[in-house]
């Protein structure tokens, strides 16, 4: 049986190499990782953007630079134009002896309050040297948002694996090679397995590549693989079901689109929603995979937790499989 599975995989690989697909499979995770590295440096800055008048008060400019991102402009008209831009930037401008804060009017409340607070401190001449606070750090260097991006990319990559399988199968269908398989000694199961391998390699290679390149080198890769493996099985299952049930590319593409929904919803639920909303997302395997990846990336997960999260993903997958097995079998006939 393994020989046949291997033969199907090798054939897939050959076809895919001819189609440059293997190149994409190799390149996509790398691009994900590079994009994350390019975008994240500014991510953890939670302060405001301020616009100030150039040369008006150098002391003020250097004071605010300690607490906010500062842009300087030559005159008030230029500043006005900048404040009216589509992002959130407020100006602190002189008028007589005093300073006033110019806003566009649509900034989030927090941003205006931050600017008010900074101007208050400047007026009161509050200096860092006089601080009565002391800061201790736990030595973490990776901002949570970077972790979020890496985690979401890992999920996207496993969905990509599923999409590959689905499209692979639909292609076989459109080319009418599936019925031909039924005439060969290859069993249905071998065919399923053979078709799945390519979609299995991508998430495993991809998640390791992304984690490594984005600088999470000290995570426990065995723990990561555990979660990735579980979520990959899910994508395989979905990819296969989509592939079997859809007769053409249009339907496959449309139903894959539906897949992004539970993925995005799970990430949003964990990151934004409060505790009382969490239970509404327990059904989503992406929810558990995300949680699992999160503790692996933060390096504070115990094996017990990892096993629990990947176990839940597996159980959800098995339920879906049991539910849909007859359909899959029928679809292959």
């Amino acid at each position, binding site marked *: 049986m393994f020989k046949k599975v291997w033969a199907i995989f090798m054939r897939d690989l050959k076809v895919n190499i001819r189609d440059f697909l293997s190149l994409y499979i190799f390149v996509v995770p790398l691009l994900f990782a590079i994009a994350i590295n390019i975008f994240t440096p500014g991510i953890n800055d939670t302060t405001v953007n301020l616009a100030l008048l150039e040369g008006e008060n150098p002391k003020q400019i250097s004071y605010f630079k300690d607490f906010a991102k500062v842009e300087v402009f030559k005159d008030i008209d230029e500043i006005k134009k900048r404040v009216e831009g589509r992002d959130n930037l407020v100006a602190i401008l002189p008028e007589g002896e005093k300073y006033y804060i110019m806003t*566009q009017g*649509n900034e989030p409340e927090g941003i205006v309050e931050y600017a008010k607070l900074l101007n208050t401190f400047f007026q009161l001449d509050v200096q860092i040297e006089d601080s009565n606070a002391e800061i201790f750090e736990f030595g*973490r260097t990776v901002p949570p948002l970077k972790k979020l991006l890496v985690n979401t990319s890992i999920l996207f990559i496993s969905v*990509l694996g599923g999409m590959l399988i689905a499209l692979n199968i639909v292609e076989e269908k459109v080319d009418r090679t599936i019925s031909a398989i039924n005439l060969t000694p290859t069993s249905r199961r071998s065919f399923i397995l053979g078709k799945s391998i390519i979609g299995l390699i991508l998430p495993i290679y991809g998640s390791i590549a992304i984690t490594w390149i984005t600088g999470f080198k000290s995570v426990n890769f065995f723990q990561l693989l555990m979660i990735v493996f579980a979520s990959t099985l899910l994508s395989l299952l979905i990819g296969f079901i989509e592939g079997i049930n859809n007769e053409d590319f249009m339907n496959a*593409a449309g139903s894959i689109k539906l897949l992004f929904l539970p993925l995005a919803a799970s990430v949003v639920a964990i990151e934004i929603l409060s505790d009382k909303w969490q239970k509404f997302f327990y059904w989503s395997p992406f929810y558990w995979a995300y949680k699992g990846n999160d503790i692996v990336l933060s390096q504070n997960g115990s094996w017990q937790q990892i096993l629990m999260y990947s176990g839940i993903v597996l159980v959800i997958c098995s339920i879906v499989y049991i539910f849909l097995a007859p359909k899959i079998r029928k679809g292959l006939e």
Partner: protein
Amino acid sequence: MKLWYSFIKEVKLASRGFYFYIELFMALLLLLILIFVVPENFESRQSEYIHLDLPKTVKKAYIKEIKDKDLDGKVEKVEIENDDKVINSRLYKTEDKEIYIIDDKKDVIKLADKKQKIGAVIKLDNKNNLDYEYYLQGYESNRLKNLILIIHNVGTDTIKTVFNKQDVRPLSTDYEVLTDRENLIPSFLTFNGSLMGLFIIAAYIFLDKQEGVIKAYAVTASTVREYLLSKVGVLLLTTIVSSFIIVVPVMGLKPNYLLLLVFLFTTGFFASSLGLLVASFYKNIMQAFGTIYLLMIAMIIPNIAYFIPSWNPTLIKILPTYPMLEGFKEIIKESGDVSYILTISLVFLIIGLILFEIANKRYKKTLTV
């Protein structure tokens, strides 16, 4: 006229396939999520763990100050689980914070470490002034750390007085703020329409290629342009219908629907032309898929930034989904910026036309027998 017939024929064909209904189902699902799952506004409060290492009277005064800021003025006793240990604490919820008062300093440090939140210990120095110890994760920016360092330098009352005297002058006051639920709509519209349109139109073309429809087309009187336009038309129709399904029930009469129509049309046209062009470089969907997936992922990045106002790198502003999100946001507001919407609509239309013409040229060479 021929174009109209081709379009009607395509619509009829599409209405027989599953795809059309998947789109409608997806729109309905998004609508249900918006109405029943997403709260009007998300509650997001920062958690802080605090230990008060202070003499009784000072401690009392300090707690009273926090209690005054509490939303319902009541203290909640909560148990926090941390590494199999249950830590008792008193919770105060203010407008933007959840403050946990904890009896043991060690627990504060442990919780700040494990839960990755801010921890603080407040004590008296040898001159009997308040002194603060902050426990941070390490990835906070220096600017934030500087602010934390100075925040207690001056008494709260002095800060309050000067703070309240700050003169804030908005350039305009008639901006409306969208609720969190409404704020999700631009993201849904961009994703459902343009982003996926890229992928769907490519699938559409390859399906026809594989089934031999395209060769059959070559012997009809229709031109390649009409064929491509009729495909784009079906896609635009589904996008417009599904977008209206989402917008109308949530926003009611507030948005300018004519503008929405124009914007959906131009952005959808741009996305499908881009999809057509990309697809023209490949022989089958498997080949095209990688490039399309990458394009889609790149275009999702502004979607992430959209939800994080403080993160707005210049690089994402050149991605087409950035103006799309901003455009949809303006449209669903009652007092949206009409000139902005029309300007970017025009830009999308022009780029869309250019892409479409290039795609058309390429298909003329490859699609005909």
